Each structure stands twice: as structure tokens, then as C-alpha cells.
């Protein structure tokens, strides 16, 4: 695989769960926000920004942000604000907002915000369009039962705003634009690289294929991710698009330490808390009515959703893209995954849950200094 690209993805969790948090079935949607302490929030932003600025200096190719609401899982309810704050500090790496559910915002405003970020960063923005997790629909006044239609229409408006000279018009089911003519326009032409992220709903795959966008499955087991990539290739070809490897970012969780023992000692507790506590949700929050089709609901309730609650380190590491160990082991595993998934685009989560700063810094540093060179060397094999 040539042209390897390394992202670091950060969720910016609120890492101070109250002692009684296990009393709550979910740390999303209805988890009381009185447990948010802005002074601690300030300290965490300082720390996370430091980590991302470091990643830029260490040679990561991109910083990845995303959006979640009403949860300790993420302090990026509006990731474009965070991205704007990062632009002057992250000098070289791309800034990926992966992303704002386009059906949650007025499409012209989102097109404008992204254009501003792209111009501010001199064309370093990348965008992904998620439908948003089920949880976001309980937190935003957007109907999950019509979300896919609204998503499509929002996307159409944004692309029209970026690719056609304004003013243009749009008369749709959800939005009317008499003068679609947003200023500024993106730095990159016709617009920043676009992806769709999702958990593998057939409808979402189809949309990515139709638009010729990249696609990244998130929180699906390795075997399913492989099948989804194959499906996407097939459907993209159907619409006349040839997918490039970099259009298939591979989301993974990584922890590198000096020895295997150290890695296995230092990491699992945080990953466990990530799954059990930070990603803890309920079936109802995960699937608001209409968010998925009845067929998908049957499929999903037949298989258990391991990503939200319940933890077995071995089982989870075996099933998902999770690599923990020495630089050599991690490089080997990631190399294999990239080959299999036919991608050169590795999107790594390197801070999870309440991981202390030193672990994240070590992880980022060892990854940049020892994993990246190994993988890059392998490129010319």
C-alpha cells in the first residue's frame, strides 16, 4: 500500500465521571449535566489541545474531530468551534471534522462554517457526513423518522452551494432557498474531500457510493468492516466511481508502549471504561423510532451491540480494529489490516476515556517515531 496516511482521532471525553455514575444506565442523552464541571472542562481542553498540537509536530497527517451531544463521551458538541480553535495551533496537519450531521444544521450555515474553516486553514479541511448516532436525536429537535431524507437534502444543498456559482435556488421538502449564495466559498476546489461515516446501514453505503464519497465504518467488527468496504466498492462502481484507497479510512484503537507487558498493563482499563462507561447507552437511545429500518432493527437486535456496554478485552481486541503492544506488533497488525481493507488511510484513536496525559503523549510519540516509520518502510516492500 503506498501513500500511507496517519490520522489521530480524538473524542475529547469529559474524563471525570461522578462516583455514582454506574447508577445510570446511560452516560448519554439523559445523564445529568450537573456533573459537568467547567473548571475541569477547561483543564481537559488544555490537555487535549496540547496532545493534538503535539501530534501535528510529531508528523501525524491529520487531526480528526467529531460531534456528540449530551454525553461525557465527547466535549465536542459543536466540533467546528473546536476546529476553529485548532487551526492556528495545528500548523501542518489536515483538520478533519468527521463530522457534523448535516441534517442537524441549516445546510447553508454548515456549508459556510466548513468554507470558513477551509479558508482559515488554507485548504486543510476534510469533512465527513454522519447521520449522527441514535443518541443525538434524543438531544436535538430533529425527527429520526425523516432523518435520512433530510440528510440527503441537506447534502444536496451543501454540494450545490459549493459546486455551482450562486445565487442558485433550492425548493425541497425540508428547505427553501431563494438565494443560495454563501460566502465564503471553500479554499479547495470544488470542495474539501468528503466522506460518509456510519455503522453500515445499507442506505448509507448506497448514498456514499452514489455521491462518489469515501466511507468509513465506525464501531463495526473487522469482518463486517471488510464486507462493507467490498460492498461499497461494488456499489461505487455501479455509479461509475472508482474508489481510491485513501477514501476508505480505517478507524482503529491503538496503544503503543515500550514492551508488550507495559502496553497490556497500561491500556485495557481505559479501553474498558471507554466501552462500559463512556459509550454506555440503552437500546432505546441507540435506536430512536425510525432511525433505522425495521429490517435493520431485527438484524441489530439479533446480534448484540457490543460497543455500548459490556467488555471482554480479548474478545473485543479480536473482533475490532484494536492494536495494543510494542511498535513492531502494532505496525504488523495495522499493516495487515490496511492490506486486507485495501486502504492506506489509518485513522487511530490514541486517547480513550480517562487515560492520563502521560500515556497519551507516550502513545502518540512511540506511534509517530516507531510505528509510522516501520509502516512507511513496508510501503516499498
Amino acid at each position, binding site marked *: 500500500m503506498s501513500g500511507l496516511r496517519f490520522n489521530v482521532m480524538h473524542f475529547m471525553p469529559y474524563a471525570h465521571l461522578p462516583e455514582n455514575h454506574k447508577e445510570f444506565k446511560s452516560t448519554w442523552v439523559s445523564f445529568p449535566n450537573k456533573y459537568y464541571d467547567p473548571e475541569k472542562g477547561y483543564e481537559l481542553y488544555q490537555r487535549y489541545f496540547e496532545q493534538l498540537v503535539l501530534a501535528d509536530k510529531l508528523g501525524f497527517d491529520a487531526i480528526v474531530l467529531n460531534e456528540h451531544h449530551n454525553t461525557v463521551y465527547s466535549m465536542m458538541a459543536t466540533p467546528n468551534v473546536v476546529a476553529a480553535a485548532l487551526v492556528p495551533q495545528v500548523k501542518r496537519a489536515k483538520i478533519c471534522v468527521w463530522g457534523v450531521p448535516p441534517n442537524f444544521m441549516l445546510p447553508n450555515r454548515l456549508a459556510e462554517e466548513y468554507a470558513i474553516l477551509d479558508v482559515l486553514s488554507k485548504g486543510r479541511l476534510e469533512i465527513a457526513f454522519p447521520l449522527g448516532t441514535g443518541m443525538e436525536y*434524543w438531544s436535538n*429537535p430533529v*425527527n*429520526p*423518522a*425523516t432523518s435520512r431524507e433530510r440528510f440527503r437534502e441537506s447534502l444536496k444543498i451543501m454540494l450545490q452551494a459549493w459546486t455551482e456559482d450562486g445565487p442558485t435556488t433550492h425548493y425541497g421538502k425540508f428547505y427553501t432557498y431563494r438565494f443560495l449564495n454563501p460566502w465564503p466559498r471553500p479554499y479547495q476546489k470544488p470542495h474539501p474531500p468528503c466522506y460518509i461515516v456510519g455503522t453500515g446501514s445499507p442506505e448509507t453505503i448506497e448514498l456514499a457510493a452514489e455521491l462518489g464519497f469515501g466511507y468509513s465504518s465506525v464501531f463495526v467488527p473487522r469482518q463486517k468492516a471488510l464486507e462493507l468496504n467490498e460492498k461499497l466498492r461494488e456499489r461505487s462502481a455501479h455509479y461509475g466511481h472508482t474508489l481510491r484507497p485513501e477514501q476508505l479510512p480505517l478507524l482503529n484503537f491503538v496503544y503503543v508502549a515500550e514492551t508488550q507487558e507495559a502496553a497490556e498493563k497500561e491500556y485495557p482499563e481505559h479501553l474498558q471504561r471507554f466501552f462500559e462507561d463512556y459509550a454506555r447507552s*440503552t437500546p*432505546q437511545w441507540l*435506536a*430512536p*423510532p*425510525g432511525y433505522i429500518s*425495521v429490517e435493520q*432493527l*431485527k438484524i441489530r*437486535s*439479533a446480534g448484540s451491540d457490543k460497543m455500548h456496554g459490556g467488555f471482554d478485552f480479548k474478545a473485543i481486541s479480536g473482533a475490532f480494529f484494536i492494536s495494543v503492544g510494542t511498535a513492531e506488533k502494532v505496525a504488523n497488525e495495522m499493516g495487515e489490516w490496511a492490506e486486507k481493507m485495501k486502504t492506506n488511510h489509518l485513522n487511530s484513536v490514541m486517547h480513550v476515556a480517562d487515560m492520563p496525559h502521560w500515556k497519551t503523549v507516550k502513545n502518540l510519540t512511540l506511534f509517530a517515531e516507531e510505528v509510522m516509520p516501520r509502516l512507511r518502510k513496508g510501503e516499498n516492500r
Partner: protein
Amino acid sequence: MSKLAREEHTIDGVKTVVYTAGKGDPLVFFHGAGTVDGFDFAEAWTDKFRVIAAYHPGWGESGDDTNFTEIHDYVMHYLELFDALELETFNLVGLSLGGYLAAKFASEHGHRVKKLALIAPFGIHDPEHPTLDIISTPGEQVVPMLASNFEVLKNRLPANLDVEFMAARYRESTTVARLFWEHPIDSRLPRYLHRLQMPTLILWGDEDKIIPVQQAQIWRKHIPNAEVMIVKGAGHLVHLEKPEVVASIGKFLRD
């Protein structure tokens, strides 16, 4: 008492399943937001009425139409169905969400509704006695709240809440979400209720945990020709808990 017979119609491309039996004055029944209560209770009316109970699009055995995003789409659907059934005038009974639909229908097409019975109707905004938000309340909590005596509902539920059953509920919740996610409150409903000039019965279980019985008085205040019947010891599915109310409704419509 006759067993209801199943009919299948296609209304504007939507499969519409109608259960019907009996002879006499037509009686149309509109079901609520879930269909586990079934239509068999309505057989008690078949001695005196031609009973017509249809599944609304998006519920039960009827098909889906994802373009139905407001209650008025259902009013239009029923106008078309009534044309297909050659129904001119009829008595109308609505339960819960079906009560709301019946009130909307009757406020627009009052000349076709001889008498109206609303059983614990949905749709009134009463901040002091709010309707339970069935969208955000977990299903496993809603189900036991449907009746005061849960036994009457129990034999209509599968022993284990299997995937098929849950999927059927998810589909019906999806239909509800399409209608009410953004706007669960119809603030304009009361202003048009005065158009319900036909004799109207408002029937409510006094232990209703879904839509509080106190809302009955608001309906009565707005409907000119309404009488209220409060049923003691019954919850939301009062027609299942107290089968005698089915007879009372029949009597009201007949007399």
C-alpha cells in the same frame, strides 16, 4: 355477535386492511398508537352496527406510506377509504391517538359523523396533567402503564418479547415519530373543537396513566354537545379492562 372479517383494500397505493362485520348503522373505529389491543372487543357492536375497524397506514396489517407526516394525511386517507367503502354517514369511535384523529376528522367533516365517541383521546396539551411522552418513555415502562389490571393485556402479548414483536412495535413507533416527533402538541386543536356539533361521548378510565383523566374536562369545555363518562378502576385501555363500556358506547350511539 359476529366475528370480524378481514378485507384488503388499496387506497392511493397503500395496502389498507379493514376488519368488518355486522349489519345496521355504520360504526367506524379508529385505533390508538399501538395495535396490541386488537379489534376483537368491537365484535360486541356487531349485533346493532356495521362495524368497520381499519389499521391506519403504518400500523398493524396495513402497509406503510412514509409520506404521511401529519395527522391530516390520515384524515385524507380515511376520506378515500370511506369512498371505497361507500360510507356516507357513520358513527365514529376513536381511542387515544385514534380519538385525536376522530376529533380532527369530525371537526373537518362533521356532517358525516352522526355521533362521536372519544375514548381517552390524545391531543390536548394540559401542562397540569400532561400526557405521558410515549416516545421517550422506554417501551417496557409504557406497557404496564396501559392498564390498571395488566392481566387483560397480558394474554395479548407474547410470552417473551421476541424480535418480531419488538420490530412490530418499532415500526408503529416509527409511524408515531413521523407524526409527532417534532410537534407532540397540537396547540390549535382546542380552537376547532367547537365544530364538533354532533352528540359526543368522552369516556375515560379514572386510573389512566398515559393520558390523565383530568383532560376529559378540557374536552368537555370545548365540545358543545359532550357528555363525559368516567370509568372507575380502569386505565388507558378502558375498553379491554371494562368490557361493559363497549356496550355503553353502543348504547350512546344507538339512543
